[in-house]
Every structure is written in structure tokens, then in C-alpha cells.
């Protein structure tokens, strides 16, 4: 496993740790077998910090997000190991009622397809008011809803509307308003702009970035879009096949990606200023997690694969400001004669 000591994260903003995942493993049981979409993931988010989690579809990044509040799109999923520490308190040990009080109040979520995450038969105002009521903030709820809607660039009149009367971008603004309703310490945004039109994506992203600054939010941003990462994140985790393979401050990640998988991801991004032909980014597809590859999970697709990659699991190793899990660096360090 890539579980590593909870060392001080590189490039941390210095704020208090808001969220810390320690070796979290989430399992989905089905008749076809057991799958661990999140396998020993550790990450930290500090106050006021925007942390990105990137990876392909199926890398487990969304399941990592769902693991924090233990809310999954399927009943078959469950966190089976690790700790989810919110300001030092392990959410995995909370009773259902205590966990409910955390949801939407201390930790709020923003989802991908905002329209489908709003109940079609309730007005959007009613849905935000319910949230305020659930956290004993019923008094002045209507005023608060109007204020929130204004804050995300909507008119208070939108409160009386049903989701189908709003555009995708407006729905996502409602989703953001709901996330901010109870002034949470941490917001988890799962692909918040993916389902939107490109022009709307930029607006929503700017809104999110502005609100994050204004409210000094800790934001855990799940995305496959490296453009989004470059624009808003402070620090990035790269996930592959349920594990974290690299962690770096955002500028380091783009300047000097260390893991071959990260290098492949970045190579897949079209560089308009450097119009050379795009390289075939990464060959193959994400492995079937019912039977993950041995050793380094990326080795069947890795262009630099070595014999030991298929037998030994590489640990996350800190080099400079970047931590990455790859035997190549070990080789490189060894050849320079510097012990890791």
C-alpha cells in the first residue's frame, strides 16, 4: 500500500489541517466480487487551501470524495479501513446522528450534474431551507436563502423556481449556494464544472474560486480537467487505480511531473502555444480493480516499466516538493549515489 507516515505535506499553506484522510480504503461488494475503488488513500487539506484530486474515470477520485461523508451512489460501498479526520475527529467512528450533523454543516458537497442532484418536485429555495432547518438554522431561513442566492449571482426570486426551470449553470450555482448555506469548514466539489457548457464552466469556476477566497474555505476539488486544476488549485494529488501516485504543489506538478502516469496525463493536454503533434497520451485503459495489477498498478501501461515494477509496490517518496510513487526515482537516486 502507499500508506505513508502523515508527514507534513509539502507546499502546505501553513493553515491548520481541516481534513486528513489516513490510509482510507473503500470497498464495493457485488455479486461479481469485491472492488476497492479507494485503496489506502491518504491526503490532507488545510484551512483556506484548494486541493485538487485528478485522475482518469475509474481512478477512484470521486469515491474518495464520497468516502469523506460516507455517502455513496451505491449501497454496496463502504469505507472498510483508515481514518477520516475532520479537525482531528474521526468521522468513521461517528454515530449516524452525529454524522448527519456534520453533513451539510461542517462538510458540504457540490456535485457534478447539479440538476440531477436537485429534487425535481421541490423548489430550490425549499431545498436549501430544509438544509438550514436540519441544522437548527430555521430562523430567518428565507432571508438567508435570498442572501445565498445573491452571493452566487442569482436573483432571490430563483428560490421559488423548480430545478427544471433553471439552466445547468444556474442549477450549479444553486448547488454552490447550498454548499455554503451553513458556512462549512470544508467543501468537497466533485467535478463541479464537468457537466456544463464550456463558457459556463469558466463562470462557475471563477465563482467557486471567488467564494473560496472570500470565505477562506478549504476546498477539495475532484476533477479530471487539468485546466481547472491549473486555474484554482494550490496542491494536487494524482490518483491512479484507487491509489495516490503523486502529490505536488500545482506549479511543480505542471513544471516537473515525476510519475510516468502524471507525465502521460499532462502530455494529453493540448498545448496551443506549442503546436507539435499530440503524443498518444497513455496507452490502454484503467485496469479492472477486481483484479488490480501486481506491484505498481500502472506498470502494464507504463512506458518506463522495469522488472521490479510488477512485483514490488513503490512507496510515496518525497523529492523536493513532490511526493511520488515510482521505482524510477529510486533508480535515479541510486545511480547518483544519494540515499532516499
Amino acid at each position, binding site marked *: 500500500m502507499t500508506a505513508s507516515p502523515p508527514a507534513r505535506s509539502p507546499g502546505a499553506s501553513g493553515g491548520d489541517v481541516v481534513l486528513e484522510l489516513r490510509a482510507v480504503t473503500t470497498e464495493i461488494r457485488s455479486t461479481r466480487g469485491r472492488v476497492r475503488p479507494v485503496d489506502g488513500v491518504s491526503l490532507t487539506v488545510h484551512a483556506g487551501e484548494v486541493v485538487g484530486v485528478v485522475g482518469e474515470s475509474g481512478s477512484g477520485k470521486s469515491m474518495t470524495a464520497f468516502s469523506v461523508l460516507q455517502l455513496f*451512489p451505491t449501497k454496496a460501498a463502504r469505507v472498510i479501513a483508515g481514518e477520516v479526520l475532520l479537525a482531528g475527529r474521526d468521522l468513521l467512528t461517528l454515530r449516524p446522528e452525529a454524522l448527519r450533523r456534520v453533513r*451539510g454543516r461542517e462538510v458540504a458537497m457540490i456535485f457534478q450534474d447539479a440538476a440531477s442532484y436537485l429534487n425535481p*418536485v421541490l423548489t430550490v429555495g425549499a431545498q436549501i431551507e430544509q438544509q438550514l432547518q436540519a441544522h437548527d438554522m430555521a430562523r430567518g431561513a428565507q432571508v438567508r436563502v435570498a442572501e445565498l442566492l445573491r452571493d452566487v449571482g442569482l436573483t432571490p426570486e430563483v428560490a421559488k423556481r423548480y430545478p427544471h426551470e433553471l439552466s445547468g449553470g444556474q442549477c450549479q450555482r444553486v448547488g454552490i449556494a447550498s454548499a455554503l448555506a451553513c458556512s462549512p469548514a470544508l467543501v468537497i466539489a466533485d467535478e463541479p464544472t464537468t457537466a456544463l457548457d464550456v463558457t459556463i464552466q469558466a463562470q462557475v469556476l471563477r465563482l467557486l474560486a471567488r467564494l473560496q477566497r472570500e470565505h477562506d474555505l478549504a476546498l477539495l476539488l475532484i476533477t479530471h480537467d487539468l485546466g481547472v486544476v491549473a486555474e484554482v488549485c494550490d496542491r494536487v494529488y494524482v490518483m491512479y487505480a484507487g491509489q495516490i501516485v503523486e502529490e505536488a504543489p500545482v506549479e511543480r506538478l505542471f513544471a516537473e511531473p515525476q510519475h510516468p502516469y502524471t507525465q502521460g496525463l499532462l502530455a494529453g493536454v493540448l498545448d496551443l502555444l506549442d503546436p507539435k503533434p499530440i503524443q498518444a497520451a497513455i496507452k490502454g485503459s484503467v485496469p479492472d480493480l477486481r483484479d488490480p495489477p501486481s506491484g505498481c498498478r500502472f506498470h502494464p501501461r507504463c512506458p518506463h516499466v522495469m522488472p521490479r515494477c510488477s512485483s514490488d509496490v513503490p512507496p510515496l517518496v518525497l523529492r523536493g516538493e513532490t511526493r511520488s510513487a515510482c521505482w524510477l526515482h529510486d533508480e535515479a537516486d541510486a545511480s547518483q549515489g544519494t540515499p532516499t
Partner: protein
Amino acid sequence: MSAGRGTKALGAYALERLVNAVPLVLGVIVVNFLLISLAPGDPVTALIGEFPAPPEYVERVRAQYGLDQSVPERLARYLGSVVRGDLGFSFANRQPVLDLVAQRLGRTLLLMLTTVVLATFVGVVLGVWAARRPNSAVDGGATGFALAGYSIPEFWLGQILILVFAVWLGWLPAGGFRSIRAEYVGLDAVWDQARHMILPVLALSFRYMAITTRLTRASLLEVMNADYILAARARGLSERRVLWEHGLRAAALPIITVIGYNFSFIVAGSALVETVFGWPGVGRLMYDSIFTRDYPVLLGILLLVSITVILVNLVTDIAYALADPRVRY
């Protein structure tokens, strides 16, 4: 109701639907009339009885009721009188059809509405209960109950209920509308009436409880997997509020549809149940009219049943529009 739509729009919609229903009702009358004129049996023979009457007498009776005219002529006359609010005269009961049917309609509606309310209430409660714990013992029980409800015919269930509760146990009356021999007043009369209703309502509602249970369970299970349920949980709503305020609210839409749909079948079912329990309602009257070839009564009942079904459909659509803001009208 959203800002853009009001009760005014809904009223206009209802009126439009009612106007549109007029040609439908006329069509129903024509089809029913033609079907009955095609049916075997002769009302005159039924009226006179198996008595070797002289042919002149038979012809006289036939002419007296206008049955010597051609089908188109009779249809035209019938339509003419229906438009004037006259449903004709019952051969067998020697009474205007409208009076006869109106007198019995109230009793049938009492039976039907009680059935709809009971079936909906029990069905929704059982369905929610089953959906909250899928594949549990409760769920298995509800599923078995639903299967039984689907499979058991009303008239058979009615007879079994009579056998058990009236004949063997003697708890409840075997049939009838109210006690004939005793004169009850006030609450006693209500209780007497209720005692007579229990078995027929049970027999009639069993199937619809089953249908509603299954549908509620299925609809709720599907809705509870929706993204917005996950989102409601993520906002910190309790499971109870997620279930009642988000789940059932959204799951109610197909349930409303099926209640309206059931209503038409309950009309048919009530004919059987009224016959079994000797409940003097429209169903029983229809059954008798078929045997006595009392065509005006039969036509009148079919007309009222059609109008009832059309009205119930309209009410269902309005309820649906009120429950689902996405419905346009």
C-alpha cells in the same frame, strides 16, 4: 405552484378537458348502444316471460316500447333524449332510469371511495415499510401479500370472507346494505352501516392494496437511488425527512396515476362484489339489468360509468399537475 402558473390556468385546463370529453361521451353512447343491439336475447321475451304469448300481443309490446323500429332510428331517439337529460324508462323496474341509477349510485360510490381510501392508505404504508428494508422479512411479507392480492379474484375472496366472518364466526353480516329488521338511529345507524361495509370493502380493496403496495415499493426504491436523495443526505437531512419529504414526494407521481387507473377497475370490481354481498348499488343493478335485458338501465349505467371514469381521469391529471411541477398543461 410556481409563479408562472396559477389556479386560473388549471381551471381553464379542466374546462377544456371537460369540453373535449363531450364527443367522447357521445361516442361511448353510440358504441354501447350498437353493442347491446348486437347482443343475443330479446327484452320483450324477457319482459313477458317464458309464456307462450300470442304473436299479436308480443308485437304490441314490441311496438309499445319502440322496439319495432330500426337500430339507427332507435339510436337517434335515444341520443335525442339523453341530450335532454332523459335516460329512458326501465322495462323491468317500471321507473325512469335516471331515478333508479341515481338512487343506487350513492351506495356504490360509498363502497368505491372507501375502497380507494383504504387501498391507498394501506398500500402506501406497506410499500414504504417494505422499501425501507428491501429483502427483509417485512419486504417478503409485503411482496407475498401483493402477489396474493393480484391473484385472488374479488368474487371468490368475497365468498370466503362471508364464509369465515359471517357464517363460521358470525361476527359480521353476510350481506346487505343495512339491517332491515332493526331500526337504528344516530351513531348506532352509522355503526350498523359500517358493519355491513367491512366485508365488501375488504373484498374489493384487497387487489388495489396489493397493486399500490407493489408500486409504492418499486417507485420508492427507484427514487431512493436518485442523485437528489444522495444530495439531500449530504445536506444533512435525517433519513426520515429524506424519505418523506424527498423520496415519497417524488415517488407519489406514479402512485397518483395508478390510483386513478384503479378507479376504473374498481367500478368493474364493485359489480362483482355487490352481487356477492347483495349490496344494492349500481353494480348489482347492472347485473340484474343484464339478466332482464333491461337495456335502457344498462345503457344508463354504462354512460354514468364512462362519465365517472372520464372525471376521475381528469381529477388524476389535475392531481398529477399539482404534484409534479414539470407537467405542462
